[in-house]
């Protein structure tokens, strides 16, 4: 869910990342503060409306990114149903879906390097205390990069297991996946070093 990109270019791509993140924070606070079912129904409808603005392709990509939420929604609904507060459960689920959908919306329409610029700005007070902001930015990018990379590796391992076994591999994939992750990290570290490492921009200028 974290490394989302949009299939089309939207108008929101041109807005400043700080503005989008600021609006997202405000909207999330508002969602958290309200409890009325009607409010959350309207909020979700409004959010889905935003997804429709750039067109059908964008809308479908957005919905696909939200699919991962259904198990959580199911658990919340089941729990609140059992404890006798089904309406409360519906509100919680609506709030969660709206909040994640809005966050995805910002992610889909903002370049990672623009997000990093905001992190850079927010971290500036810490830089005075000796924090290397460039290293922080690169580390964030690496974390985001490694999530889809790892899930792809897990998929490969599962397939090579299934090619030679009847049963699903489950936990037995964890040790080899850990080793693959370490190996991947080695390669990435080397490729990163080849382009200057995480130490930050060097003082040499291009002629």
């Amino acid at each position, binding site marked *: 869910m974290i*490394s989302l990109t949009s299939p089309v270019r939207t108008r929101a791509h041109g807005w400043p990342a700080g503005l989008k993140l600021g609006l997202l924070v405000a909207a999330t606070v508002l969602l958290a503060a309200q409890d009325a079912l009607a409010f959350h129904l309207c909020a979700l409808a409004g959010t889905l409306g935003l997804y429709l603005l750039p067109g059908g392709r964008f809308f479908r990509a957005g919905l696909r990114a939200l699919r991962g939420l259904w198990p959580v929604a199911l658990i919340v609904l089941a729990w609140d149903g059992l404890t006798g507060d089904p309406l409360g459960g519906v509100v919680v689920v609506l709030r969660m879906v709206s909040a994640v959908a809005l966050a995805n919306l910002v992610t889909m329409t903002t370049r990672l390097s623009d997000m990093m610029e905001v992190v850079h700005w927010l971290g500036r007070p810490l830089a005075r205390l000796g924090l290397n902001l460039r290293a922080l930015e690169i580390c964030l990018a690496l974390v985001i990069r490694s999530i*889809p990379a790892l899930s792809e590796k897990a998929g490969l391992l599962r397939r090579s297991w299934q090619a030679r076994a009847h049963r699903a591999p489950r936990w037995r994939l964890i040790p080899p996946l850990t080793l693959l992750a370490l190996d991947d990290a080695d*390669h*990435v570290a080397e*490729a*990163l070093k080849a382009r*200057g490492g995480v130490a930050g921009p*060097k*003082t*040499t200028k291009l002629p």
Partner: protein
Amino acid sequence: MSHPVPRLRAEALAPCPISGHRKRFDGTATGGRAISTQADIAAAHLRLEQVSCRIGPRAVLEGLELDLRFRALGVVGRNGSGKSTLARLLAGLMAPDAGQLRLCGVDVAADRAAALSTVGILFQNPDHQIIFPTVLEEVAFGLRQQGLRRRDADDAARAVLAAFGKAAWEEAPVSTLSQGQKSLVCLMSIVAMRPRVLILDEPFAGLDIPTKAQLMRYLGRYHGSVIHVSHAPEDLADCETVLWLEQGRIRDVGASGTVLPAYLAEMTRQGEGDDISDLPG
């Protein structure tokens, strides 16, 4: 797209000139053989003095001695002969355990800042190299690493995309690209940094024939010197000089016209043997 593509300067893809570069192309190699190199200001100078490298207890490279000027240098050898280790040494990603190594006069392992404008390396798997989710960010990354400001790095990256005829790729998500397209993104990212020498460590292995041919053609847009590492002699047709590694030592170095046929003959001979049975150690 809202950004104008800046006009490309003619030298945009040429490597950084180094000061004090001597116009001498009388490359000599082990055994005192002279190696004729194309007279071109972009010729690179490689010097190895008794370079050795061990990984754990094993000597992976041993006593390499070389003094060579080249535009396109091929490195051949069987799997495990030490080609990738040599490529890593030349890119300054590791330091030799013994001996001295200079590429265009730069100690690439010690002086990383100078190494960035001296040498770039393209690995086999583009997924190991690509960090950012969109093409422009990936290409601009190395430029920011070289100290360019954000906006300048973006402009320079756009100029490189335009020079490769890929201005439309700017916002393309890397995850949607084919393997060959990802390789091209890696190539553009390295070329953007304008290194004097570009090292290719079997970067196109595993790609289909048309993709490989197209990438090789794009490679032609880079105007610096190239070190092309491959086990396959047909990949090295464009190299004027070839270095043949065998079990971590230089077996031969010289004009490709003589080294490659000898290598091919030896590989064919070894192919009839059964050293696949030999376990390491």
